[in-house]
């Protein structure tokens, strides 16, 4: 479903991704592991069609994602509905006056009708356990609450692929555990999950497969998570431990 072949990306002169290749099938759950600065966030931006490779190809369901293609409004909107992105910084993701509006934003746009949109919003509110916050302003919520609202807002689009950038950052242990379980439920429901993290134990819980990135911005390993996290020599090499 998702295919990266030889993708490179540079911010001006400094490289962020070097010759990255992998493919992800529908329904898989994959963790992107790597130290800070290895290019994980950049990769996620390419994945979501926000930036485009300076070399190489990114294909989604066989179609290459190019600037020209993303300029077509119809395709771009459909693409963004199918691939949901939860930012690392939840604060930058919430721009509506109330939590309810934030979650209802997506469904309202999709032309589902007021009732269906309301149903989905209420479903997401209860799924993420934030019904009590529905009338509150997102800006003034705590870190964990913001993250839940952000996940709910993205989920309300019913994406097939859910991409999360360092989701456990700034979450207390209880919320982090809750989110891990929730992501497991989503995987069981058929969603494709792509999660970037530098937390090894978490990766082992979240997904069977992990792709490891090094400080050289390239793929160092791609395989079973459980095996990878035990492979101390490799992890030391990429400066993750």
């Amino acid at each position: 479903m998702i295919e990266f072949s030889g993708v490179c990306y540079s911010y001006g002169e400094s490289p962020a991704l070097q010759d990255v290749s992998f493919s992800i099938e529908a329904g898989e759950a994959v963790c992107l592991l790597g130290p800070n600065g290895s290019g994980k966030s950049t990769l996620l931006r390419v994945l979501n069609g926000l930036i485009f490779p300076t070399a190489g190809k990114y294909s989604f369901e066989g179609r290459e994602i190019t600037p020209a293609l993303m300029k077509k409004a119809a395709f771009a909107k459909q693409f963004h509905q199918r691939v949901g992105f939860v930012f690392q910084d939840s604060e930058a993701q919430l721009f509506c006056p109330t939590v309810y509006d934030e979650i209802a934003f997506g469904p309202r746009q999709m032309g589902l009708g007021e009732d269906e949109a309301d149903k989905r919003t209420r479903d997401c509110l209860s799924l993420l356990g934030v019904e009590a916050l529905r009338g509150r302003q997102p800006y003034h919520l705590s870190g964990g609450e913001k993250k839940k609202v952000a996940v709910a807002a993205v989920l309300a689009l019913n994406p097939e692929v859910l991409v999360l950038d360092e989701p456990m950052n700034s979450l207390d242990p209880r919320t982090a555990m809750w989110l891990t379980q929730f992501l497991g439920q989503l995987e069981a429901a058929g969603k494709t999950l792509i999660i970037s993290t530098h937390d090894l134990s978490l990766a082992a819980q979240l997904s069977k497969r992990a792709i490891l990135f090094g400080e050289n911005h390239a793929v160092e390993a791609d395989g079973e998570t459980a095996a990878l996290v035990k492979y101390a020599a490799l992890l030391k090499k990429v400066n993750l431990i």
Partner: protein
Amino acid sequence: MADIPQWLTEPEQYSPPKDRDRFLDRSIVSFVELLSRFRSQSALERDRLWVSPVSKLAAAALYIVLVSLSRQFSFVYVMLAYTAVLLALLPAGDLRRCLTGAALAAALAYLILLPSALAGSRYSITMIPAKTFICVALVNILSRTTRWDRLAGALRRFFFPDLFIFVIDITIKYILLLGEFALQMLYALRLRSVGRNKSKYGSLGGVAGSLFIKSRDMSEELYYAMECRGFTGEYRTSRVRLSWRDGIFWLLNAGIVLVYLLLS
């Protein structure tokens, strides 16, 4: 833990309705270009054109004044030569950008003045596009060959108070920080604009309004951070030193000023 509802387990067969939201893409482009300018200037390890920022700033100001005052095309021609040489010294990327900026400004000036030229006023159309080219090119060259914090520091030599320079430094820093936040938010809006947004205006208010609120929070944090480091309101910038290269540069500049005086 609640059960996953049915609609989440089935893929959406979704066909997006049409909508007009060019403003969002255009805003994103503005911010992306802004931030990439910041990145490229911070990557300047050593200022290009090897003269100190103070001299570059003073010379740019001097030439803009002289060009603006000048009524002789002969002097403008001399300045065109000077500008062309400076442009030729730049690396290709900077050169292209300075040149396009200056050329566009000059072309725009030409278009604006065309009606007056057709009505018989020849002076404006001869002089102003050329002058515009020179002035815009000089400012662009200054801005692209000097690291901005050094440029702000250079202002100190022009009798601006230290506190003012500090405010400018903070402004530059926060344009970058807040700019990145604003861009993230615009991306967030774009990613969730999957259909017809009936409340575009509300979204714009949300995105820009959140920027304002964020800036207030950052103000608080800045104050606390500076308190913790013992800031009392005094700010010392390091002196920008002049070298023998500046001496040669100013000999050249003096020559050009002489030419100006001779020609007028």
